[in-house]
């Protein structure tokens, strides 16, 4: 890759800073507090665990299903959403998990923007947060303050102030003995976990460079031309219905979608915050009324001089692929879709294949909760991936070189006063970014 090299001499020794234990332990090991907490062990729950879900879209239903599949002691206890239609889904869950849905005859099914607080207050033990991501920091804070274990779907922070809030809350959860799982599912995908172990053991030596991609067939949740918006529908309701199209609600495709690939790149690079990033991107096939881009290229440089890059695209009809090319001092590793291999001296020394770890992530999460251990993959792991994604987005939007210090000091808040947001809140999408003109705040 072509990159403006920094003046700094390369001084890295990857295995020094990325040597990590097994998963789960890995995340906690990086946290300032260590495990297990005595307090948490005392709290190891045996019997029924009550699950409350906030946000009953596709991923809400999916996460409930996964957690209930993994742990037969869980029951669906409460649910919340802003749309009443969504609650039909509970019938399906009830059919599949006979006798394990107990929302008190629907009394613990809450509709509205304040539904999250009602779900949290309902007596649930585990809260699943799968609403439109803009709400995540507020809801996460409330859930942790109430003493819950929490699953937070990605992305959970769409700007740096939001990310600081998430990290603060995650630290509180950690010290209170509450587990937190992020829905960055590639981390829990068996063949990639296996490959990580081998890379940790030095299968390809020290890792010099990673290039990752995440390219899909098109933007999800296609938005019609805004001229179709019915007169009685508010701008905010329209925006929430097609939230994947709006920076303010989704964080751009970078956070909403590409973060999966960025997270893998961050993983192979040892979960460090790069020191510099320059980037590009565009709205090549614009959707009328949408301000999110559909393409991006990010170039990162790390403190020790190593580099990584990310390529993302969501344009229909284009080549679609998701994978990583990892170059080490002794060989290379390649992940592509559902498979991966490691190659040394032109010979494949390992190959692996598996499906995405949607079940495995909940398995790890529930195991910790049941054994009274604390799981937390936010601190030092998923928070770093969010920061890297935000660094890339801001560098691309502004067209400026952004340092690690600059990005962490960003004060830009995409959507203010989310706590009091309703359909009546005015909404006007920002102009789609133009590199060189859009300011980095």
């Amino acid at each position: 890759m072509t990159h403006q090299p920094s003046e700094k001499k390369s001084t890295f020794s990857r295995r020094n800073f990325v040597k990590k234990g097994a998963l789960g332990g890995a995340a906690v090991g990086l946290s300032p507090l260590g495990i297990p907490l005595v307090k948490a062990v005392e709290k190891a729950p045996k019997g029924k665990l009550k699950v409350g879900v906030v946000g009953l879209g596709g991923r809400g239903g999916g996460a409930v299903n996964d957690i209930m599949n993994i742990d037969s002691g869980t029951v669906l206890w409460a649910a919340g959403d802003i749309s009443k239609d969504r609650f039909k889904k509970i019938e399906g869950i009830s059919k599949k998990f006979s006798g394990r849905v107990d929302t008190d005859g629907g009394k613990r099914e809450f509709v509205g923007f304040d539904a999250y607080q009602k779900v949290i207050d309902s007596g649930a033990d585990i809260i699943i947060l799968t609403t439109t991501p803009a709400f995540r920091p507020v809801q996460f804070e409330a859930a942790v303050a109430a003493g819950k274990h929490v699953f937070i779907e990605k992305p959970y922070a769409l700007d740096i102030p939001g990310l600081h809030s998430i990290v603060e809350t995650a630290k509180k959860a950690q010290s209170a003995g509450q587990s937190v799982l992020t829905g960055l599912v590639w981390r829990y995908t068996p063949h990639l976990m296996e490959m990580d172990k081998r890379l940790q053991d030095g299968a390809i030596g020290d890792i010099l460079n990673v290039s990752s991609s995440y390219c899909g067939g098109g933007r999800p949740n296609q938005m019609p031309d805004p001229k179709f918006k019915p007169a009685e529908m508010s701008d905010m309701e329209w925006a929430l219905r097609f939230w994947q199209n709006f920076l303010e609600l989704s964080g751009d495709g970078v956070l909403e979608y590409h973060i999966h690939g960025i997270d893998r790149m961050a993983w192979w690079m040892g979960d460090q915050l790069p020191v510099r990033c320059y980037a590009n991107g565009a709205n090549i096939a614009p959707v009328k009324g949408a301000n999110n881009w559909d393409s991006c290229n990010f170039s990162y440089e790390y403190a020790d001089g190593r580099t990584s890059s990310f390529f993302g695209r969501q344009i229909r009809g284009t080549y679609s692929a998701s994978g990583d090319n990892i170059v080490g001092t002794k060989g290379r590793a390649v992940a592509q879709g559902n498979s991966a291999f490691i190659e040394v001296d032109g010979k494949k020394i390992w190959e692996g294949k598996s499906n995405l770890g949607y079940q495995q992530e909940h398995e790890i999460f529930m195991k910790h909760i049941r054994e009274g251990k604390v799981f937390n993959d936010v601190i030092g792991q998923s928070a770093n991936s969010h920061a890297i994604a935000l660094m890339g987005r801001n560098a691309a939007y502004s067209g400026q070189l952004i340092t690690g210090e600059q990005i962490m000091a960003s004060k830009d808040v995409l959507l203010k006063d989310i706590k009091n947001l309703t359909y009546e809140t005015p909404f006007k999408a920002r102009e789609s970014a133009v590199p060189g003109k859009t300011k980095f705040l």
Partner: protein
Amino acid sequence: MIRFVRKFQTSPIFPFIIALLCAGTVAQAETAPDIKPALAKDGFDEEEMRLAKAIHKRILDYQGIKKKTNNGKEEELIAFQDPLASGAHIDMLPVKGGEFTWRGEEEDDILKVSLSPFWMSKHEITWEAYEPFMLSPIPRQKDGQPLDFMRAQIKNDIEFIARPTPPYHPMTFGMKRDGHPALSMTQHAANKYCQWLSFQTGHFYRLPTEAEWEFACRAGSDTNSSWGADAQKAGEYAWFGGDASTHYNVPGKKKPNSLGLHDMHGNVLEWTLDQYVPNRREYFAKDKVHNPWVKATKPYPHVTKGGHWQQSLKEISAATRHQSTPVWKVADPQRPRSLWYHTTTPWLGLRIVRPAKIPTVEEMYHYWNSGVEADE
């Protein structure tokens, strides 16, 4: 809806069948097809029936026009190329009706099958022909319908045919796309594709029944493979190879069977219309069946045929039946699961047929709407 069906029985379909018989495109006298369970005669989804009716009319109209420009002669059962609005085209080859012996997995499962003539696509349907359907120009709800508040603005009925939501993960699974077979659609998506194709081409398309598929694959042979019993020859005709193979292939690069059909064995697994029943002889409870179709009553298992690039020679034989399973959607992170995509099947595709005889509106409705497409 009942009123409509009754009206239809006295409609122009009857003279049409007579004309078709006289023209000699249907080789045998009309025998009742063995469809089980019998097709429902009422209780139709009104909107789906309206669409079936509209498409049926387009097909009859187009047939009338062709006849007129062909000096009153009926269309012959010969190869043709059907162009799509997108610029892609589909090559169709004739499969004359006939009989064959259908051997099942159990020893006593032997049936004599007779089939009416049809055309079958020479190749597996490619991304070029499928993607214009998969990527809808207007937004879709999860069931494939246009958004409620947009319905009033839609002028053309083709947009009311349910279509997939955009895929979330790359559906090529890291393999090449151009010229390659479309992958990993559900049977429901394949059915709706046929409906969409029928609307725009004016020809009735559907998935093959299990019997039609095997008959066309065998092309008169009674061995495991259409090329005979010689395993050495397999490489000339089929893409396969078990875990050692790494990807699917552009159709038509291997030799065809004697009907001219390529890749019936191997490359991608192909959808049929039938639900899987372990013993077909037992299920139909007779020795001889005509145009058999085991209509689905549940979402799984349905029959897929021909095996795929990742399987062994044994698994791609003409007789081998592969069953669809919910495991094919195991990597779908959403609930309810998508009606449109299987998420773990980089080897599942489709091939289409066009029966020589145009079906009734009711039949079209049933071919395109299984009614059991939702998983849970």
